[in-house]
């Protein structure tokens, strides 16, 4: 049964005002196209979950979609700050602007998703001793090991309403295959109530079946499948396109002022109907500069 939809319909059907949302990806496979469509559809009051909010959440924050952020590292990786986010958090922020931050370390937030994905109400980790992270977050508690008597930290399961995960290829039922960094994609998909798989390429199930070890998210947990080539720009997709580092550097300027962010959103998000118009605006030369040469994996045999 095909679950193929276009991005607009998939977001409209699966992302609701007030939802807890994850757009997954750790530097790799961050689906900016989904974030932009959520902005265009004017979703409000989202609780946005990501280890690293990255530019995509900075843009969604600036556009007014997000009222609460669950995260563990909020910066522009390799460049500096996310200023739209900082404007909403720092002391000089106006009262109506302030957002709620539910903050962990990477391991702490990942553990919340691990608990949910694995069907437990909490997860145990040996962390947070001596750190102020737990002093400012009531979700960080502890249990006593029944064997050693040691006290260990716990975090509660986090079940997002909807997860958006991007992959190199999927079939129309949502069996998603990934190579390169896998991050926490599997955990995010299993933790969430609804899952949108976005793929650079939609392939026949027979291709998926030729190499089943590459499947990271099985179709049975997937609600919608979107074909969106270049959906991760300026993030990257191994084998498909490189990270557009120039964009990350330029965002450092753009995000410093509300006006420049608004102008950017007007041009690149509101001013286009979707990813294909975005790519036209980006221009063939810039797009071509990010195309890789092939570095082939070689084949293995599943014979028996």
């Amino acid at each position: 049964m095909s679950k193929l939809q276009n991005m607009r319909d998939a977001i409209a059907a699966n992302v609701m005002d007030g939802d807890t949302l994850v757009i997954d990806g750790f530097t790799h496979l961050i689906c900016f196209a989904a974030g932009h469509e959520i902005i265009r559809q004017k979703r409000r009051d989202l609780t946005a979950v990501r280890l690293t909010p990255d530019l995509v959440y900075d843009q969604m924050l600036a556009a007014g979609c997000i009222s609460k952020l669950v995260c563990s590292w909020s910066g522009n990786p390799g460049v500096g700050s996310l200023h739209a986010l900082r404007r909403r958090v720092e002391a000089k922020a106006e009262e109506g602007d302030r957002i709620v931050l539910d903050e962990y370390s990477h391991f702490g937030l990942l553990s919340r998703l691990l608990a949910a994905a694995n069907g437990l109400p909490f997860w145990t980790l040996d962390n947070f001793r001596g750190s102020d992270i737990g002093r400012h977050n009531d979700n960080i508690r502890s249990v006593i090991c029944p064997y050693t008597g040691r006290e260990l930290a716990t975090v509660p399961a986090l079940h997002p309403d909807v997860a958006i995960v991007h992959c190199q290829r999927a079939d129309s039922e949502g069996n998603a295959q990934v190579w390169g960094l896998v991050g926490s994609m599997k955990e995010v998909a299993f933790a969430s109530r609804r899952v949108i798989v976005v793929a650079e390429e939609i392939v026949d199930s027979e291709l998926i079946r030729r190499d089943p070890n590459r499947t990271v998210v099985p179709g049975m947990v997937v609600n919608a499948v979107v074909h969106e080539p270049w959906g991760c720009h300026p993030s990257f997709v191994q084998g498909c396109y490189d990270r557009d580092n120039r964009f990350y550097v330029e965002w450092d300027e753009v995000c410093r002022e509300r006006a420049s962010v608004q102008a950017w959103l007007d041009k690149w998000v509101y001013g286009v109907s979707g990813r294909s118009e975005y790519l036209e605006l980006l221009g063939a030369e810039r797009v071509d500069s990010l195309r890789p040469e092939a570095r082939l994996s070689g084949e293995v045999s599943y014979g028996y």
Partner: protein
Amino acid sequence: MATDPGVTASAAERMAWRAASELRDHDVVFVGIGLPNLACNLASRLHAPSLNMIYESGVVGSRPERLPVSIGDPALVAGSLGIVSQADIFQCFLQGGRIAVGFLGGAQIDRWGNINTTVIGDYERPKVRLPGSGGACEIATHARRLLIIMRLNRRAFVERCDYITSPGHRVNGVSRRELGLPGGGPEKIITDHGVMTFDETGEAVLTELYPGVSVDDVRAGVGWHLRVADELKTEAEPSAEALRLMREELDPQRLFLK
């Protein structure tokens, strides 16, 4: 505030080189972007050819063909020996005690090696919001040896951190051992003027100066009364080969060796 720390090596080059000299062959190192990445790659070229480099993003045994600009750079992935999930990075590698050496830096550090990368000012109403922990808290918790790389500055080397993101040797008077922290804690603070180690109480002590630097130069950049060892070592200059590798091969565009 200080004399030039060396005629040939820049401050960043010296820090990267000094950090590299701490790494031993076959060490399993948790690598961060910037100077730690340069230090690790320099060590693997100079004296630690079998250094095992692990990146927080899940890359094991990387051999990048270009300088990575992020810990998830695709150049780290292609040609690596293995990719693991983030759950494995934090659970199997860090919590499992498999990481011999971790690196950290930060906006503030105190005499006990506690580090702040979260906020300047009050947590609820911060003057400056910093990125937060990322993996720093768990690196500080679990790495068997922790190397800290930071430039001296009185706003950074403070009497008391506004917020402790990553625990060092002593928090509010309680020692690392009493807190039950499994890793070894900070071993050295590698600065742009010299190196501090930690005494048996867990307090930072200046033990090493770079050529041409005085104790007062260092104290000018430290916001507490810094203890100084009876005998101070003076490190040699980085070798010509180390400088050549850094400048010509590892960071020819001076992205991190500014």
